[in-house]
């Protein structure tokens, strides 16, 4: 009964999107059991093999099982993009929330800083920061660098919205009452203001996740994302540059299809979060 009421609240499309996302996330988490082989294992007798019972999506030109790589790549992209979104939302909550809470000169400075940061095109900034860091790192380090960069550089847009949300709350009756009750400073911000910003923070988190997934995909396709042999959606998309091979082996499009489905589902979920935040 409770489940039916919840479905009615969030809508059928949103429920389907959430179920699909959960299935993809579960499949990627269970990659160790589902995938018949490791993402890096090479089958030299089956290079560029077509789909079969052994290799569901065939193998790539190094003889690696494409299905296993897709599952492990989904794990990297789908679990680390929310981690980066969490980092950027926390940074935004801290910077935007404090600016809105303190007001006055601090707010003006932070707003100018945000405007300046937003005038820098996202991908150019990402490339500049990525180039500053080592390019020849281990795969695990490259994953950490890529998603940490996304998290650290993606705070400006949410910070602006959180600042505006904080300004609306800062003169609310419950905060005035809390102040009159002797609560001030950090406790007021942490215990009374921040929990009331939760719908905005959640909406900003959900907005950031698809943005970061797409950014990683773009970076990966440009060769500046996660290093081989660790797969990610971005690095798997590099196969698509070989048009002739894609025409002959349409199953090579599987990473794009999965990426579009997941980002599409996230957008559907996002609409609900935005509605709740409003």
């Amino acid at each position, binding site marked *: 009964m409770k489940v039916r009421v919840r479905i009615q609240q969030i809508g059928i499309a949103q429920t389907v999107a959430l179920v699909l996302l959960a299935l993809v996330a579960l499949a990627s988490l269970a990659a160790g059991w589902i995938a018949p082989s490791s993402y890096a294992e090479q089958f030299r007798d089956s290079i560029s093999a077509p789909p079969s019972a052994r290799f569901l999506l065939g193998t790539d030109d190094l003889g690696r099982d494409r299905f296993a790589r897709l599952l492990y790549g989904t794990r990297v992209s789908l679990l680390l993009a929310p981690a980066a979104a969490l980092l950027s939302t926390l940074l935004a909550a801290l910077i935007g929330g404090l600016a809105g809470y303190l007001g006055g000169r601090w707010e003006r400075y932070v707003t100018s800083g945000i405007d300046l940061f937003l005038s820098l095109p996202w991908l*150019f900034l990402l*490339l500049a920061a990525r180039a500053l860091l080592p390019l020849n790192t281990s795969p695990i380090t490259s994953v950490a660098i890529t998603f940490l960069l996304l998290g650290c550089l993606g705070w400006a847009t949410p910070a602006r919205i959180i600042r505006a949300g904080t300004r609306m709350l800062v003169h609310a009756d419950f905060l005035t009452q809390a102040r009159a009750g002797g609560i001030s400073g950090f406790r007021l911000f942490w215990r009374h203001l921040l929990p009331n910003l939760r719908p905005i923070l959640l909406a900003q988190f959900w907005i950031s996740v698809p943005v970061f997934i797409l950014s990683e995909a773009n970076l990966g396709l440009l060769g500046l994302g996660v290093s081989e042999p660790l797969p990610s959606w971005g690095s798997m998309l590099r196969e698509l540059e070989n048009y002739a091979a894609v025409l002959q082996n349409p199953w090579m499009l599987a990473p794009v299809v999965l990426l579009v489905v997941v980002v599409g589902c996230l957008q559907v979920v996002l609409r609900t979060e935005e509605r709740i935040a409003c």
Partner: protein
Amino acid sequence: MLAGLTWKVFLRQARRILLTALIGGLLGATLVRLGPGFGVDERELDTRLSQESRQAIRSERAADNNIGMFYVRYLKGLAKGDLGFSRSLNRPVTELLRERLPLTLGSLGYGVLGGVSIGLALALASACWRVPGSNIAPAMLAGACLAVPAAVIALLFLWMNVPGRWAIALVVFPHVYRYAKNLLVATYQSPHVLAAQAKGLSNARILFAHVFAPAAPQLAALVGISVSLAFGASIPIEVISDTPGVGQLAWKAALDRDLPLLVNITVLVALMTLVANSLADIALAAWRPDVTREAA
């Protein structure tokens, strides 16, 4: 002759651009100064050089070791239009940008114009023609475009032999459509539009005088944001379609760790984005001073 308010907006925007150039330049110089490989000269590896020659090379670069001096020299160069030297391409950055910028600006012009036109036209159709289910197709198209990375859109266009600039339009359009649709629908539902409809004003008059006019500041800002979006999309699109523009140059600079080149490109692109935003604001101030005054 520009009115007082327009001048005020113009001066405010000029101050903003100057400040961005200054801060961006300083941040850029810091990045270059702290970047790996700074102060290293491969000539020092030449075993034929004497100790004195090596010392002479080191003293050549000694001035750059002082961050303060480095900033001053960088800013002086920046003021003269000297953006430094690209180590990877062995050419002055200004020369490289002069060669590649027109191509990128051309693509961006087409892309932004196309994206904004398509987005606005579909948003307007969705807002005006409120038949249930009529906006499903454009909403799905916008959703699909938003879910595909710009690089994949570029690949699709490359496979179909369509110029890359139209891929930029496809990246820009969904953002414009979604924002403009929400804005126009909300404006159409506002009391003053209902009053105008009740008075029997024509649809065209309602659209231009009572819907577009109040939404003008946000729509102008949307054009500015589109420029930033288009610049971002230009990197993967130019790389995939092998277009020798600034986006491809930035990618090459990132792969070769050519920070002086990359940082200067980033600052330049940021300034161009700001100029586009400022032009939108100034045009709005000249066209609708009342709206600008209200927004201020």
